[in-house]
């Protein structure tokens, strides 16, 4: 399927990823730089992958697959293994989805991501609609309203303390009447251990399918790039109750490299869709495996 224009990664986007996630301090980069020989010290590479939040299981798998692969250097072999693990990310029906539902735990950057997605869609000539369905957090609706005004995107607001599904219902009706697309829905943050709140997500998902049966829905889990192995637990639980289609990895400019995304991809097969690289509205770029892996490995290979 053809990739929707606003979801394509540009050269500018790629540069942004590299700048954000490849600072010189990356322990993995240091280790790999020292191991340009074909047979590196795997133990040190293991430590470095762990220090990047890849997690034990995915690290062990990566090292095994790197050892099995051919390559001129330790770095090249780890790179090949990581790309293999991430697989082909671009061939997916959800590229045409016109309802995007953002879910995740508290404070991962859902509201900001919603605004950034809207800004990007609008910049590509689409007419997006934002839905403030976080009726729980104090002033979350105010925050999205302010961001909507800044980006010149219309926002449908839920009622504080009200039923988020109601706001979503209104928004989808409005979107149908005035042909808004994509519809980007911001939901309340919830701990994956709170079963009541997770049930609410299933309900939201049902409402979307019921009100807009013809629209393609993409449920994106927003993961904090600094998250450790708990990110895996988050993905598991959210996938179970809302059915996740992909991951948005935020805050990758914070010195974290989002290694947990590899663990998520390995265990749950969930693709990474977007990467948040900063605080400006343009700092959200489509995921590109090669660029991401180069970032994880401390920059593109020039050695």
């Amino acid at each position, binding site marked *: 399927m053809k990739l929707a224009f606003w979801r394509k990664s540009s050269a500018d986007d790629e540069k942004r990823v590299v700048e954000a996630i490849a600072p010189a301090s990356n322990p993995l980069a240091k280790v790999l730089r020292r191991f340009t020989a074909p047979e590196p010290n795997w133990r040190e590479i293991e430590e470095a992958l*762990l220090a990047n*939040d890849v997690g034990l299981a995915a690290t062990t798998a990566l090292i095994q697959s790197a050892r099995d692969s051919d390559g001129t250097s330790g770095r090249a072999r780890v790179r090949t293994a990581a790309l293999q693990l991430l697989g082909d990310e671009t061939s997916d029906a959800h590229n045409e989805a016109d309802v995007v539902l953002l879910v995740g735990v508290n404070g*991962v950057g859902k509201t900001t991501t919603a605004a950034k997605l809207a800004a990007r869609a609008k910049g590509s000539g689409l007419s997006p609609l934002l839905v403030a369905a976080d009726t729980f957090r104090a002033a979350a609706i*105010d*925050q999205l309203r302010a961001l909507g005004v800044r980006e010149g995107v219309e926002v449908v607001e839920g009622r504080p303390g009200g039923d988020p599904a109601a706001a979503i219902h209104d928004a989808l009706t409005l979107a149908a009447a005035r042909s808004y697309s994509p519809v980007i829905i911001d939901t309340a943050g919830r701990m*994956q251990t709170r079963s009541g709140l997770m049930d609410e997500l299933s309900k939201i998902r049902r409402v979307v399918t019921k009100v807009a049966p013809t629209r393609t829905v993409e449920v994106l889990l927003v993961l904090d790039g*600094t998250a*450790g*192995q708990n990110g895996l637990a988050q993905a598991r639980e959210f996938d179970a109750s809302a059915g996740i289609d992909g991951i948005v990895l935020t805050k990758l400019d914070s010195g974290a490299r989002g290694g947990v995304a590899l663990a998520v991809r390995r265990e749950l097969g969930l693709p990474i869709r977007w990467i948040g690289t900063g605080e400006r509205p343009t700092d959200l770029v489509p995921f590109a495996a090669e660029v991401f892996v180069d970032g994880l490995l401390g920059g593109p290979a020039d050695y």
Partner: protein
Amino acid sequence: MFDALGNSLRASLRRLTGSGRISAADLESGLADIRTSLIGADVAMPVVASLLERVADRARASEIVGGLGAGERMLGILHTALTETLGGSGRELDLRERPATILLLGVQGAGKTTTAAKLAYRLAKEGRRPMLVAADPRRPAAAEQLATLATAIKVPVHREPIGTSVAEIGTRAIASARRLGLDVVIIDSSGRTTLDDELLQELRDLRNATNPRERLLVLDAATGQSALSIAEGFKSVAEPTGLILSKLDGDARGGAALSIAGGAGIPVVYMGTGERPDALERFHPDRIANRILDMGDLATLAERVRDAEIGPAAGADAEVRAKAAEARALRGGMTFDDLLGQLRQMSSLGPIGQVVKMIPGMGGMAQQAEAAVASGELTRTEAIILSMTPAERRDPALLTLPRRRRIAAGAGRTIEEVNRLIKRLDEMRTLMRRAGGGDPSRLMGGGAGLPGKHAGGRIPPKASKRDKRAKKGGKRR
């Protein structure tokens, strides 16, 4: 909170001591297991290394290999290592100044604003008069969020028009607190994903203007390996005096506490354990080490019970009643009245999973308890107890079969459910009696010397037999 880390550490310990004596090879593989647990809990790699070294050194020094009682000693060593890494005995906030100023720092989404409100609520409950200050000029609606929370907990909030410099906000807030006679000023600063020059300058300005004695770093408990670098980053600008670990109510393993206390030397002072304003707990390293190793945390539980049961308003009468119930429970003479009281108190103690975890050896039951609440089991239990006569509630030995049938009919439950409840009270009596010795290690003494042995809630047959005999005797009376 800390469950998964605790579970896997305890599993490592069990493997290590399964055979009574441990060999040098056992110790090596045990240490490797512990390493796996720590990494799985997102403890920063340098801290993992130093913690393991500490454990290995102590194990060798105490000649644990080949010696007897290796299990208890290994448990002790691990407990000490965890407590030390977490910062020893913990620290109190320095609030001697009038007004005392607390600056909250942290990356975006760490939970600063929510934590600010919780801290204000807590300090207000402790008899102080706090003020909240919105000094986040960046995130849209951050000030509104703080103001909403402040209104909910009835704490005054200071905010200025957008565009006011943080230094001005800080200075005016402190002046205003003085004027209003408030004694604690809690400043919510803006978060950033990166510590860029602009934020650094802002923090410096804010610090110079308000000169806060307490500079508390707020960190999401789910933070991975970057926890340490985040802490180091803030260390260079604001020298945090303490850490507040937020969002520990998820299933975060809390390794960040070890990373930051052990790696950056910033002691953990509080932890956020839920969304309610009162869900902020003091962090006691030794008690947390207890919880991680499922040695229980009776000290915190007792505090919570005291707060919930007595409260500042209730009279001496409530205190006497609470003391009597406690004493009864510890003697193993707990009644259905006590159980009913406890059930009703649960909601005021906080989520049941958290409460159960504080009971020695019960850590593994936390999830079951949570599931019980979700399935409405507690309501059904309450119905059954309410269908008993006061005499029956006081003395379970009265519950003969016809009486049980009557109770089941009255509560609209099956007789099996009634029987289960009676058995449960029985088990709790036994457990509490053992806990009543005061020394948690006695709880482990009965078995292979390991906590977590009874994590499934199983009671050694000896104890329940003894108890049944006691009940029969009662019936004859």
